[in-house]
């Protein structure tokens, strides 16, 4: 999970807002034109956007989709606070100060393993980009098993369909807390049920997770117990995004097993689940 080496001197870029599309309750998909970010971003990486001139800090967003040919990238978020509120109100054509792509990526997996992408809510965003990479073969050999994507939400009305993916090539399964779409229970319950049913062979699977922290903690426990390799993408409030402020930390273990705080922006956002102490 080594971070891609910075290609020479890094600098802020100007991303032009192309479109804003509502895809769920208070949930927006925004597209930006910025060719370098569109070309360089790998699944798991994020962009750090300054939502408007009145805010002191940038806001971090996982990259949801890229179109290197058109030179665009997409983000997916719920409007929650001042930062997302300001970004949501920007009209198309607005120039947004952007850093990116930042952080590390999901690790491409061994050829004979089934990738299982486990998403809680909008944790789906970086996993969608990873699914696309897997399906296009850049992160996986063509003969590898079909990737599985598990999508968990509280209820059907909150479920966002991953943008532009075909269920012919991707095995998508839904879980909702109230059973209004797919399996009744959490995505971690769903994965557990699939293991019990023999749909997933622990020795031949690789799990990638992103979502709320309690869900990730449960996923880490399940994978540790089943001895399934597991990578998690974490979310944090990030003042700087490039490793200097030490604000976005998560308690974890270093390679020698000693407790330490990892920086999510620079040491992650993707971590081996075993290196995190939930």
């Amino acid at each position, binding site marked *: 999970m080594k971070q891609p080496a910075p290609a020479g001197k890094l600098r802020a870029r100007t991303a032009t807002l192309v479109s804003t599309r509502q895809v769920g309750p208070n949930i927006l998909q925004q597209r930006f034109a910025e060719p370098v970010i569109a070309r360089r971003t790998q699944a798991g990486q994020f962009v750090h956007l300054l939502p408007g001139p009145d805010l*002191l800090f940038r806001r971090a967003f996982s990259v949801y989709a890229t179109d290197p040919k058109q030179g665009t990238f997409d983000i997916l978020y719920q409007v929650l606070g001042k930062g997302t509120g300001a970004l949501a109100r920007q009209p198309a054509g607005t120039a947004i100060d952007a850093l990116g792509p930042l952080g590390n990526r999901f690790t491409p997996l061994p050829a004979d393993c089934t990738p299982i992408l486990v998403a809680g809510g909008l944790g789906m965003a970086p996993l969608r980009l990873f699914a696309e990479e897997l399906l296009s073969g850049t992160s996986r050999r063509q003969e590898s098993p079909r990737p599985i994507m598990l999508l968990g939400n509280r209820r059907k009305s909150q479920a966002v369909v991953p943008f532009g993916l075909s269920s012919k090539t991707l095995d998508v399964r839904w879980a909702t807390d109230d059973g209004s779409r797919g399996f009744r229970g959490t995505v971690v319950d769903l994965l557990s049920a699939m293991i019990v049913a023999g749909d997933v062979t622990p020795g031949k699977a690789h799990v990638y997770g992103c979502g709320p922290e309690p869900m990730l903690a449960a996923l880490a426990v399940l994978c540790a117990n089943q001895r399934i390799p597991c990578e998690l993408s974490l979310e944090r409030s990030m003042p*700087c995004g490039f*490793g200097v402020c030490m604000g976005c*930390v998560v*308690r974890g273990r270093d390679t020698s097993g000693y407790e330490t705080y990892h920086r999510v922006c620079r040491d992650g956002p993707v971590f081996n689940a075993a290196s995190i102490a939930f």
Partner: protein
Amino acid sequence: MPKSTIKTDLTITIAGVEFATPVWTASGTAGVGEEIESWCDPKRLGAMVTKSVSLQPRPGHPYPRTVETTGGMLNAIGLQNKGIEAFITDELPRLRRMPTRVVVNIVGDDQDEYVQLAKRLSDEAGIDLLELNLSCPNVARGIDQGSDPMWVGECTAKVRAATRIPLIVKLTPNTNDIASLARAAADHGADAISAINTLVGMAVNHNTFKPRLANVTGGLSGPAIKPVALAAVYKIARAVKIPVIGIGGIMSGTDAAEFLLVGAQAVQVGTATFRHPDAAIRVAEELRDYMQEHQIARVGDLVGRLTL
């Protein structure tokens, strides 16, 4: 009438050390150099001031450690660092190679720890100045000690006796008389004063009834504290003869100029770097534009030019 273009000189000398510009990074906002180097050309920084280094490694405080507030931010990082030995082995060789001045900021639990740190660093080449963090608001005794002029004087004297590296003493604003802290440091051998560190602050989530920082309180920085910092620098510059380095909410070249006008010889850019990784360089360039506009050739000519 269009003004003529003049040649501007941003160099400044403090404690016998020449700096390419009076705009430095502030401790705790540029790491130990590695990350900032990817985003800005070190040659264009006046100096790289490291995050505080302590004798032993410190894990730091739990998350959440930062919160954005109106016009500023609170932080309670808790001085997370790998300790002096790892710093010397892992970080100093790269810092030494950076084409800028290197200021190592040190923090201790007591006077003896500051002395040990200064002695240890005296054996190492490539350190232009030491900055004593006598003012961290986020550790148990940071402010208690740092707001006592007698303690500040004693600590400065002991460190002075332990090293030949020029010393900057960084002061807390969490006191009723910052000028007397500055005088204590100056009288006991400090080569320069830097001010201000952060102001103690707190943020509360009224929905969850919880503090927004795991450490409950933190240090306030950013544009919100600039007026407090300007007043502190103004008072210190009138109280001591040694140079003063202004810190507190500097986001632009004109902010930097205001600190020079009230008596600072250099400034440190902190919180702004979190917004723009190359903020210190932007501030220096804007300061140059400001000098051009006001037909001031040498940056030193701005120092203390405030007209009452």
